[in-house]
């Protein structure tokens, strides 16, 4: 099955281990990807400080229009922020046809036009609904043997539209983890916000959010926390030592992408495909012990 892959800015930098593991893990399941040529940034969740809502819509519609002009594939956006920004345009033009007209007036400045026909999918959506847990389970050669993992869903991969999973009690990530042989642990902070795009400028306020999420996961026996969002990964992984210092605690839990776990369970190369060496808190020993 072929998709456009819109990986976005973060997956070339702070989320590089996501992109590196996503390709081989998904290709192992028969997925094919094509880049949207000359794609632009989605504006993420902070652009409102400098831009009107219409400008942010037009920014995202440019990517959608270019994809629509070239082929009829769904766009897979692995970054939650890219996903929500793209899908938001589609939802809002459906409710408000006048908005589509306004967007197209602006796109026309660059010779583009968007009909509204491109479907935007989250990577979890595609894995769960197009590939399916059965096929994923069948591809596993090195099951994670009951390794306890907290599947951290976060916010923008399910809210607000709940396209493929519940916005309040999401299950998809846990089912995908279970297909890999892991034991997903239930924890209440699964869908609590990590601070997202404003973690960096509001670190003092947001460190407590991450502390609560990780302590909840660990309290339920998790050895690893999995995520599908480069912002969540960054916020959960990179500041644990600062949080420890601030709160006098001892967090040291690896944060891994779901696609890294897939690569491991599919028996792919731990460095080249799973990109485990690019995690700041190393997950390799825990995963090696689990797969035996």
């Amino acid at each position, binding site marked *: 099955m072929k998709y456009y892959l819109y990986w976005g800015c973060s997956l070339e930098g702070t989320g590089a281990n996501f992109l590196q593991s996503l390709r081989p893990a998904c290709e192992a399941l028969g997925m094919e990807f094509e880049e949207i040529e000359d794609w632009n940034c989605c504006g993420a969740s902070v652009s409102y400080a400098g831009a009107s809502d219409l400008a942010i819509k037009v920014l995202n519609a440019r990517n959608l229009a270019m994809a629509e002009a070239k082929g009829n594939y769904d766009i897979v956006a692995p970054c939650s922020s890219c996903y929500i920004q793209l899908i938001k345009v589609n939802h809002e033009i459906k409710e408000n046809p006048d908005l589509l007209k306004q967007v197209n007036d602006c796109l026309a400045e660059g010779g583009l036009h968007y009909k509204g026909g491109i479907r935007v999918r989250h990577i979890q959506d595609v894995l769960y609904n197009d590939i399916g847990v059965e096929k994923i389970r069948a591809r596993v050669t090195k099951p994670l043997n009951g390794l306890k993992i907290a599947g951290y869903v976060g916010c923008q991969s399910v809210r607000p539209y709940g396209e493929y999973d519940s916005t309040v009690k999401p299950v998809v990530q846990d089912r995908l983890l279970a297909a890999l042989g892991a034991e997903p642990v239930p924890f209440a902070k699964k869908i609590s916000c990590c601070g997202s795009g404003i973690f960096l*400028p509001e670190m003092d306020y947001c460190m407590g959010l991450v502390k609560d999420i990780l302590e909840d996961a660990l309290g339920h026996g998790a050895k690893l926390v999995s995520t599908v969002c480069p912002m969540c990964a960054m916020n959960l992984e*990179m500041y644990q030592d600062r949080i420890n210092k601030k709160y006098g605690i001892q967090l040291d839990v690896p944060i891994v992408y779901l696609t890294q776990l897939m690569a491991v369970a599919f028996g792919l190369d731990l460095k080249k495909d799973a990109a485990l060496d690019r995690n700041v808190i190393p997950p390799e020993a825990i995963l090696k012990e689990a797969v035996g």
Partner: protein
Amino acid sequence: MAAYEPSFAQEVSGKVDFGDEIKMCMQCGVCAGSCPLRDQMDYPPRQIFSLVRAGKREEVLGSKAILLCTSCYTCVVKCPRKVPVMDVMHGLAHYALAQGYVSRKDTASFGQEFWKQVYRLGRVDEKDLPRRVFFADGVVNGIKKMLDFMDVGIKLLLHRRMKLLPERKIKGIQSLRKMLDKAEKKGKGGTEA
């Protein structure tokens, strides 16, 4: 008792992105209860909406709450009146900044620099962005903040999670800018609105 003063509510409704949605608010407070940073806000969303109706322009545009949204969409999902609370808060922040109110300096410059990069390059340069935000507050503070953030930078560098080359402009940057310029002219919330 002060007379009811609708002029600010009208201003918000006409000039702020999603500002007209405030009229649907029934003051139940579910947005405030669901917000991850509610404890840090001077006025949670419900109160912001109430202040808009009461004509309290300075309190609303100068509030730190409007710049503390993490964009988690919890309030959007939970609002029983389907007010896109998050979008209204973003709209108010955008409008307030355009009017010269800056209640949270770092978050404001983070968002503004982010957008400047999008406009300049069509992409975001993750290593350049924090640098610009740190130095938005002067050189001395910039160096201090940069040193304070060094540990994170080194971790990212050592694990090859920082793009070393500077981000290049997308090929269609000129046409993207034309589209965005037109959108800014038609859009709400800027200084021309």
